[in-house]
């Protein structure tokens, strides 16, 4: 939780997942720590289980063994009506997500097959780093380190700062992935402990940003500009998740370039082609995935936009594969 305490390594945060051997979240081989809580609601989000701060219930019906064999979730302490079977189908359980939204770990605990399970766990800085340091030799070999992602990792600013500061103290390179929609005070706590900030420029127009991401981008842009100027020794890589029909236009890419190019510590601008890898997780959470009709950008479109970026950075390189 975000409170100042005497021993920062015992500070607790809500952690979604620790992923090892990541190669797309900063230089080298990295361990990415996904933190819970996000301050935006991007319709294309590939980590929907990271959005809410608290740990939350999920359900994988394929693992349910049915009412006849089990049926424990159909009885107290689980709330009446939250779980049910439909007559005439197999006897595996369905979830009424309107009535199950208040269910938590105590509900997941009744399920012997873990069809009901929780996304997220409370961990201390020490616990996270103990797992991260298992990959220490890979960092040294590859120039990698730890990357905090989310959600929006800087929402849990105190935990994030304590984790990164302790990683630094232990000689681990640090990076964060951020979309910037937090109070500047959060960045002030976190950024002094960051070697590389991967940050998203999702849309240029504030109203369109609000439509697709839930909030406008005025504070995001202010934060990014202020971060570039306040932390000249930190490296920044701008990124755009490229969503066809939403932001895959030259105007947006050029606007981002105009925003970042005056700042020499912004060392690159990457395009992240839209994918639907997170779609199954929407099922587990009983949520609607609104982007099901959206496709990945074409290689032609990607190459065209990449060429604009390369030209701005004065370089030539092979086109990115979709």
């Amino acid at each position, binding site marked *: 939780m975000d409170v100042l305490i005497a021993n920062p390594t015992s500070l607790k945060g809500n952690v979604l997942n620790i992923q090892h051997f990541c190669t797309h979240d900063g230089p080298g081989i990295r361990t990415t720590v996904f933190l819970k809580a996000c301050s935006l609601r991007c319709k294309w989000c590939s980590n929907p289980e990271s959005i809410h701060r608290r740990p939350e219930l999920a359900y994988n*019906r394929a693992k349910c063994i049915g009412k006849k064999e089990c049926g424990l979730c159909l009885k107290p302490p689980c709330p009446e009506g939250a779980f049910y079977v439909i007559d005439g189908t197999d006897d595996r359980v369905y979830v009424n997500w309107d009535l199950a939204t208040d269910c938590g770990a105590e509900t997941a605990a009744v399920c012997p097959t873990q069809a009901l399970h929780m996304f997220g766990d409370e961990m201390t800085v020490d616990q996270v780093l103990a797992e991260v340091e298992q990959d220490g030799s890979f960092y040294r070999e590859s120039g990698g380190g730890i990357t905090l992602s989310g959600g929006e990792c800087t929402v849990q600013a105190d935990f994030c700062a304590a984790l990164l500061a302790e990683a630094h103290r232990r000689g681990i390179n640090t990076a964060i992935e951020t979309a910037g929609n937090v109070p500047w005070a959060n960045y002030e706590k976190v950024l002094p402990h960051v070697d590389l900030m991967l940050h998203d420029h999702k849309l240029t127009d504030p109203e369109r940003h609000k439509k697709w991401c839930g909030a406008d981008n005025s504070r995001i842009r202010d934060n990014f500009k202020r971060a570039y100027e306040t932390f000249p020794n930190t490296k920044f890589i701008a990124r755009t998740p490229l969503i066809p029909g939403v932001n895959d236009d030259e105007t947006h890419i050029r606007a981002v370039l105009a925003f970042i190019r005056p700042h020499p510590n912004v060392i690159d601008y990457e395009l992240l082609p839209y994918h639907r890898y997170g779609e199954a997780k929407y099922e587990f959470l009983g949520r609607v995935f609104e982007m099901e009709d959206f496709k990945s950008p074409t290689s032609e479109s990607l190459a065209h936009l990449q060429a604009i970026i390369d030209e701005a950075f004065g370089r030539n390189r092979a086109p990115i594969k979709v």
Partner: protein
Amino acid sequence: MSTPVQRIAINIGGGYVPGINSVVTGAVLAAVVLGWEVIGIRDGFEGLLFPERYPQGGLLKLTPQLMESLAGATGCVLGTASNTDPFHVRTINPDNCVEEVDRSVELLASVQQEGIDAVISIVDAPGLSILLKLHRKGLKTVCVPKSAENQVAATHLSFGFNSALSFAVEMLEHTRQAAQSARKIAIVEVPGEHAGWLALQSGTAACADVVLIPEIPYDLHKVAATLRAKLKSDRTYGLVVVAEGAVPITGSQPQSNTPATDSLKSSLSPGATGAAGSHVIDHSGYAAETVALELQRLINHETYPLVLGQFAKGGPATAVDRQLGLGYGAAAVRAIHENRTGVMVAFQPPVLKFVPLAEAINKVRTVPSDSVFMQIARSLGIALGD
């Protein structure tokens, strides 16, 4: 009842179906007879949760005169709300961060502050669970079921279905003539994700060649054989009606690409998940496209898909839905008068009854295998894909 009812409210959750104004009219007229005042809450509960969005107020006084002026009109006098769940209201906080806030306590306080003694909510299946949750927190509510697919459990007939059925039959007749002159097989997809009432009844009324519904997994080879036999005689065209939730039997999966997602739009509604925990529908038009493409591979005849989709859920109400709507509205008032809240009005011929909300949720009203409509279809030679 501890205190006599003086003021009730009406609101509408979910999308439009024909006949909503009739339900509101029925409730207003019946309430006025009892000497009650009736107000409408605009756009679900948004009129109470976001009054600042409504320059003329989030509440609307409903009088017989107002309802008379709307007689027969399409549309909905109060607006609808397909996305607002008072337990998870998306909000931007003072830090510009997006979050979902439980505003149910605030909503109940607003209801009390406005002197509203009870609320009649016109909702489809997903809305029933939210109303049950609000009822458990103290809201006196009576629900009226609306469903163009007639899939709300515990009631024989939801209002809106008959209008959708009439429209679907008319469109099928148009399609038949077009298919006849084009000498093709028309594959028409109608709403019905979990329940095949609309496909079965419209297909039967239009004497379609084949009707495919979610309750009977179809064998495309048998469908093709039926059509081949018909085309061998003097027929030059075909008419296939497919509910959007119709699925092939295991082992006769379509060869075409399975939908890119094979997964859910997920379940705000009970029963919205398929066997593997995934949603049974990928998007509107998929069922018709799949059947059209696969049939064309199996028979020497050209097919083409058509999708009625949301068209079937608009337009004017039929006489049946107007009567039913008026009856539902009046019955909801009777339920409040009898101090029976936390219920849904259900048409169980020959009476309108009150069913506890807990008994109406987590079920889908599907077509039973011994349904008279199935028997009629089969006796007319209409193939059901099995």
